[in-house]
């Protein structure tokens, strides 16, 4: 039985907590959040104790695993502290960190203490994305030439509007499509160069936005050309889809279906409600968030290496920040 303590009590922390609670091999023992009410509510829902401080929680709750679900810029603080506490494992929500340096610090701290670190790139556990990789690997479309993804919906409202502060969240490029960037890298290999346009990268660093949009073009080392659409500007509901075109076929999910509706207007209707990030649901027997966390716990129990490494988390951030930089400078960015 893994005793899990969670830093943060926002939308994703709730999702993770419910997955641990449902898992027969785990239980949530502690919840820490700067907001005592939020921590108490989430702790109560999961039979855990709410703590007023992170160090106090590590001390008192005696967790085996710490799961870091605080806003991105603070991942590094909690992950490094957890690494130094000598736990059995650490989970960090995507994106791994706000900078490549932060990611490298987290990886180094966990390596130094021998603590397995798992970056929660849940997309790899979404069945359609996992199946697409299997199909690509099996040659279903032949040699892949192009890949396109799209993701997003309306703007997510959260604590301190932190998603709306590009300084904190990195906007849609870092926070939202890091999912696709990791899946793309997992499926099609390393990226050679990136070119992007977007709203938030063009704004002063301390800006606050209530929508964001970006279009990213990726050239992979394999020659594959990719396109990633990222939106927090679409009131028409959360949409996820992709298509992979090869020299022997086309594989798609929610991308080219003939709806018989050639024109759709999705218009904002005043201030949009909603307290958290829209989390896509895919009604399958196993919740993908459950699957990703169970995978990590299973690896911890057996000593196996988790399928997502700290390097994976770091590289996805590197690609996203290269896209952010390209959108700032107007020039393509070549990756090392």
């Amino acid at each position: 039985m893994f005793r899990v303590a969670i830093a943060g009590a926002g939308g994703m922390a709730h999702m993770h907590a419910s997955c641990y609670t449902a898992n027969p091999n785990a239980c949530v023992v502690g919840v820490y959040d700067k907001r005592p009410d939020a921590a108490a509510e989430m702790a109560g829902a999961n039979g855990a104790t709410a703590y007023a401080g992170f160090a106090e929680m590590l001390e008192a709750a005696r967790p085996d695993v710490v799961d870091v679900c605080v806003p991105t810029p603070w991942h590094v603080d909690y992950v490094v502290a957890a690494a130094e506490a000598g736990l059995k494992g650490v989970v960090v929500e995507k994106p791994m960190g706000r900078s490549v340096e932060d990611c490298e610090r987290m990886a180094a701290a966990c390596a130094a203490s021998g603590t397995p670190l798992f970056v929660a790139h849940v997309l790899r556990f979404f069945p359609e994305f996992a199946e697409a990789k299997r199909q690509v690997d099996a040659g279903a479309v032949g040699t892949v030439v192009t890949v396109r993804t799209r993701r997003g919906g309306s703007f997510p409202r959260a604590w301190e509007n932190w998603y709306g502060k590009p300084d904190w969240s990195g906007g849609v490029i870092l926070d939202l499509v890091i999912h696709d960037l990791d899946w793309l890298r997992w499926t099609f290999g390393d990226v050679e160069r990136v070119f992007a346009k977007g709203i938030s990268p063009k704004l002063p660093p301390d800006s606050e936005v209530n929508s964001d949009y970006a279009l990213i073009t990726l050239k992979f080392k394999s020659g594959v050309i990719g396109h990633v659409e990222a939106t927090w500007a679409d009131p028409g509901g959360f949409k996820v889809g992709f298509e992979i075109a090869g020299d022997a076929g086309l594989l798609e999910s929610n991308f080219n279906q003939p709806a018989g509706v050639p024109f759709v207007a999705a218009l904002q209707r005043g201030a949009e409600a909603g307290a958290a990030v829209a989390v896509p649901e895919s009604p399958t027997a196993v919740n993908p968030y459950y699957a990703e966390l169970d995978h990590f716990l299973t690896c911890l129990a057996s000593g196996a290496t988790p399928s997502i490494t700290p390097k994976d988390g770091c590289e996805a951030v590197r690609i996203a920040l290269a896209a952010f930089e390209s959108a700032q400078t107007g020039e393509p960015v070549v990756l090392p």
Partner: protein
Amino acid sequence: MTVKIGILSVAHMHAYSYASAVNALPDTELLGIADHDQARAESAAKTFATRAFGSYEELLAAGVDAVIVGSENVRHRPLTEMAAAAGKHILCEKPLATSVADGRAMLAACKTAGVQLMTAFPCRFSPAMVRLKSAVDNGDIGKVIAIRGTNRGRCPFDWFTKLDQSGGGAVIDHTVHVTDLMRWLLKAEVTEVYAEISSRMFQQEFDDTGFLTLEFDNGVFATLDSSWSRPKSFPTWGDVTLSVVGEKGVLTLDMFSQNLVLYSDKTGGVSWSPWGSNIDELMIAAFAKAVASGSPLPITGEDGLAAAAVSFAAYASAKAGKPVAPEVVL
């Protein structure tokens, strides 16, 4: 009045659709077809119950009011110059030209001759596109911020993949339609093009894949997938899509999504059977109406050249590995 139309070459498959539209419309007459490939002219003339002429000159002298140029891309210039010299209004297939110099020569020839030149951009006549434009013009989504566009298709092969006749592969073939829609929608010109282009789909000398990023002079940014990336087994020829992102909402267009889905044991596959409006016919009707009334044609040669110049800039960008400004053509 009935507008008598001649078709100068049916090398492009769209010419067949235009011929069919000319026959279907009440106020147009297909006077005849000429082609440098005489057998092709005769075969098409038979299909459309019209006369095959032995030369372009004979057709131009036979009393046509206007012509449609449906040749290979590199012949657009000589055929347009010939028709202009004969005093005929011209509807020219896209891309208007394979170089800025050729395009400028075509515009000059038409201006000198006092005839009008229209570029065949039927997508402007799509009822869904018209609806989208009216929503943008009406301010429904506020200021436009960005556009995500696609125009993919199956590879047409034939002369389309012979660079000395086409001037380029997928990028010249599929950049111009959606670029034109964006220019029309935004009333803005492209100032910068970045492109990733590859030939990995067919591993031949022609480009088959193009992902373009465009910047407009009003600050809007856009991307456009102009690839021949639909496999033979795809249920339809391809697509034209736009997602127009504004301050107050998003408008999406999937121009050819009005289809029945047919699962056929006769063909052993799935195909889409379109039931949407015939945009080629709407375009030919607008062309003929303007010719008949002597009013300005709804789309100009300048529009065609501006869109083609974006495709030329895309090739230059891919070669240089950085953003490139398209040549200013207007």
